[in-house]
């Protein structure tokens, strides 16, 4: 059977070469297949056509224009690069279409696919979505007004999001979910006007969020555990060197869990062994940096499949956090106010905390104080605090951004498929607190 298939392939290849050498089809070969570059719309009319024509290692170069299409990258089209010639002017527009197959700007099932330097907007689900892949990268991407997430990797490992921007998603602008070890890096990104700036459900180990800016979302950065996805609980992320400010924006669209997170800068929700270090976190109406449980069962007692996730062994060190109602806060478990959970706080610049004196009660490198006790009533009050209802994501007036950087030499830069991600090397220990 295999021999027959090979023989058929050989015959087909020869036939294609013969046809290519004698007729108009020869232009097809010359125009892209040989140099590994497929130009859209010159070589292929649509991005989807270009993807369907691609082979591993190819670069799909998309000219400026508005492309009213949704692109699926099937499993066979691995190790390709899809790049816009202009981040601001190469735009996929979903027009809020609802027919099956039109919901995501890019839906990637193939390993090693990098997408660079373009915009996806107005899709009812996600702007950019990788799922079930080994190797992914999104660089210099803009995701605006998409109905679920902006830039999203699910059940995927060995990836990177860099120099990208997301606004107007009711869930998270950036999301990495259900991976362990994720081996992923989120760096030099910006998220505003989303339900959450970054969310990472059940995303654990070797995941770094660094040198990025999260502001004017409902909530800023929220690694979390949920039973609705596999691989709970979440753990072992490093959140370092980020600027997180004013995430109190009640005018955004937001799913229910994002509404709950309103007014929080960095919220470790039901996660374990995370490191939150050297971030600048300011101007939140609830907490700057909070380590809290995620009591799913408490929120929905009728669903027997839900769990109450504790938050344990998290370290919060050397951050500057000010101008928040509580600059620092910690509660391990919803059913035991005195459980310190081996969470620790040290070296932070702060004024207010819940409980008061948090660094004395939960020091790093030594046992917690027997006097530690969280205020469960206060936590419950915050949890059930009424928040502004979600706006319609299709209608929210979002900031017009004209200052987002373009990828350098987008027309000529060599293609680097996502076969060795994360490709940006970040020395975590060298990252300091961002300048104000």
């Amino acid at each position, binding site marked *: 059977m295999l021999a027959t298939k090979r023989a058929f392939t050989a015959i087909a290849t020869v036939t294609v070469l013969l046809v290519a050498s004698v007729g108009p089809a020869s232009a097809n070969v010359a125009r892209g297949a040989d140099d590994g570059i497929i130009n859209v719309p010159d070589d292929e009319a649509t991005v989807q056509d270009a993807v369907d024509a691609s082979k591993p290692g190819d670069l799909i170069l998309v000219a400026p224009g508005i492309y009213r299409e949704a692109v699926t990258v099937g499993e066979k089209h691995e190790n390709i690069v899809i790049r816009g010639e202009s981040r601001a002017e190469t735009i996929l527009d979903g027009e809020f279409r*609802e027919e*099956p197959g039109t919901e995501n700007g890019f839906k990637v*099932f193939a390993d090693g696919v990098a997408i660079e330097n373009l915009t996806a907007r107005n899709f009812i689900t996600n702007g950019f979505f990788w799922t079930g892949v080994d190797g992914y990268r999104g660089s210099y991407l803009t995701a605006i007004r998409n109905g*679920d997430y902006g830039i999203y990797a699910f059940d995927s490992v060995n990836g990177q999001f860099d120099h990208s921007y997301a606004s107007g998603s009711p869930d998270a602008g950036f999301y990495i*979910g259900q991976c362990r070890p994720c081996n992923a890096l989120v760096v030099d990104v910006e998220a505003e006007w989303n339900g959450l700036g970054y969310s990472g459900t059940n995303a654990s180990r070797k995941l770094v969020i660094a040198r990025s800016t999260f502001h004017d979302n409902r909530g800023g950065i929220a690694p979390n555990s949920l039973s*609705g*996805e596999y691989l709970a609980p979440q753990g072992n992320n490093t959140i370092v060197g980020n600027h997180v400010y004013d995430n109190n924006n009640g005018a955004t669209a937001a799913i*229910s*869990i994002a509404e709950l997170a309103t007014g929080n800068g960095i919220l470790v929700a039901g996660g374990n062994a995370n490191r939150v270090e050297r971030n600048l976190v300011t101007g939140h109406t609830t907490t700057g940096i909070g380590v809290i449980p995620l009591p799913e069962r408490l929120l929905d007692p009728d669903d027997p499949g839900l769990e109450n996730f504790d938050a344990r062994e998290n370290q919060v060190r050397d951050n500057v956090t000010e101008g928040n109602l509580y600059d620092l806060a910690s509660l391990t478990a919803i059913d035991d106010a005195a459980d310190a959970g081996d969470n620790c706080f040290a070296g932070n610049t702060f004024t207010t905390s819940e409980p008061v004196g948090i660094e004395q009660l939960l020091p790093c490198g030594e046992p917690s104080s027997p006097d530690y006790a969280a205020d469960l009533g206060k936590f419950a009050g915050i949890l059930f605090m009424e928040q502004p209802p979600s706006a319609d994501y299709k209608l929210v007036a979002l900031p017009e951004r004209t200052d987002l950087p373009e990828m350098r030499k987008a027309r000529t830069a060599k293609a680097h498929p996502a076969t060795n991600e994360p490709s940006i090397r970040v020395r975590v220990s060298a990252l300091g607190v961002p300048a104000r």
Partner: protein
Amino acid sequence: MKQRTAILTACAISVTLLLGVMAAASAQTPPPPTTPSSLPPAPKPITKTVATGDNFFKPKKLTITVGSTVKWKNTGRSLHNVVPNKGKAFGVARLSPGKSYKYTFTSPGKFKYYCSFHGAPNTGQHGTIIVNG
């Protein structure tokens, strides 16, 4: 793990004993004449649930009998849907968190489907219903 091993061992022993008894019975006595009254009763049509999570169907492959109903329940927090690979005999365009969709399969066959938000035919979030006659 030990408990699981013990259960598996017990099951294997039970199956072995059962097969042994059946083989012995089969060797010793001729099979009784088949009459309509001795046929095993047809399996009852029932309703089975496919949890529609973020982003998976569980179970991914479900076997039922003709006349049975499948209920897809969105147990996640994202919007999902059910789209058949072929045709439009069943499916739902939008299945919000907490909501359910039911369909009764009235003919045997293999019915593949996917969530078009998070999958495609045979990839990503997808599943199969096998309906036996």
